[in-house]
């Protein structure tokens, strides 16, 4: 087992732990907003760690870059969607407050 393998095991292992934490949050937290909080934070840290862990394994640097790009895009997309979901999930009375405040 080389050093690279060790790095991979370490990073993907850590990534998995974050994923499990995020999933536990998704299942255990009481409402949409706190679930969202758990998912976006933990999962994307986890994904990043796994991407790094895999990137050291691939042959070409281009492929490694692609892996990191995937992570970057996933983070951007998740940030946007979680914003949207958070707004959709606002209970109607809060939403109306917000709208009134906005106008």
């Amino acid at each position, binding site marked *: 087992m080389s050093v690279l393998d060790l790095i991979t095991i370490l990073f993907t292992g850590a990534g998995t732990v974050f994923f499990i934490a995020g999933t536990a949050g998704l299942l255990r937290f009481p409402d949409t907003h706190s679930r969202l909080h758990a998912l976006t934070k933990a999962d994307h840290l986890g994904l990043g760690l796994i991407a790094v862990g895999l990137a050291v394994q691939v042959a070409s640097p281009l492929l490694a870059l692609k892996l990191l790009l995937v992570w970057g*895009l996933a983070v*951007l997309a998740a940030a*946007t969607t979680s*914003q*949207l979901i958070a*707004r959709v999930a606002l209970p109607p009375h809060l939403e109306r407050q917000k709208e009134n405040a906005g106008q």
Partner: protein
Amino acid sequence: MMPLAFDLFLCGLVLAVAVAAVSGRELFGSIVFFIVYGLLMALAWVRLEAVDVALTEAAIGAGLTGLLLVGASARLRRLQAPEEETGSRKARAATAIACLSIAGLIGAAVLLLDPRAPGLAPMVDCSLAESGVGNPVTAVLLNFRAYDTLLESTVLLVALLGVWSLSDERSWGGHGGLRQYARPGGVLATFGRTLPAIGLIIGVYLVWAGSKQPGGAFQGGTVLAAVWLLMAVAGVADAPRVSNRLLRLGLVAGPALFLAIGMAGAMAGDFLRLPPEHAGNLILLIEAGLTVSVAVTLALLVVGPPQRDLPHGEPS
């Protein structure tokens, strides 16, 4: 043994999430489970070496369908449509048994299939060189079975006509009923300005790559639709008026171009025939047209029927 173990785990997960999506206690949670289900499904497609389908499933099956359902549940909640109570315990048990036996019957059919049947893969490989593209799935979609795809692109139009026809009489010709969620200057508005550029590149790349690698008009078009929707939701662009002539041209451009190329072939003897020497370029042309139309149609399907008159202070 390892791959099979992984498949077994994946199938179990897919089934568990499907059960959660179907029987979740509250509607919104059940829709979220459905989206997760779609993403797991995409993973299953990767395992079946069907990356094109995986992309489609992730973009359309999970993403767009999920978006439609989330949007619908939000609108329903605003209408205060009450949540439901299901039928009696006995009726539900009877339904479950019936569904179980149907699934069993279908499962039996799966096990009865000859595990050595080759399908059409060898034949596709033989003709791939003449198809003008290197990705066999694209070759099937846009050459060998292009006729299916032509009809499919009009199915989208039918759905949109149906959706539009559900507007109020007085809102006809107006803007789609999309709500904008962004506060001016908020996080979402910033994303709405920065992400489209990236999305545009990804969408066009997916179409371009489709001739050789997984990708194509429907996957790319979905990404472009998502970009447009994001801009609309973030308040950067507004949903257009349904009476906009340019918009309507965009809707039919792809299918019409497709049909024109097909009819040109018919006049020469063979409907939808693409001469092998030009097939590559023709397919790219059709895909470009379809991408525009698919993107516009999908985006407008999500936007929904025209609902409001000119919004105040919004540049058209």
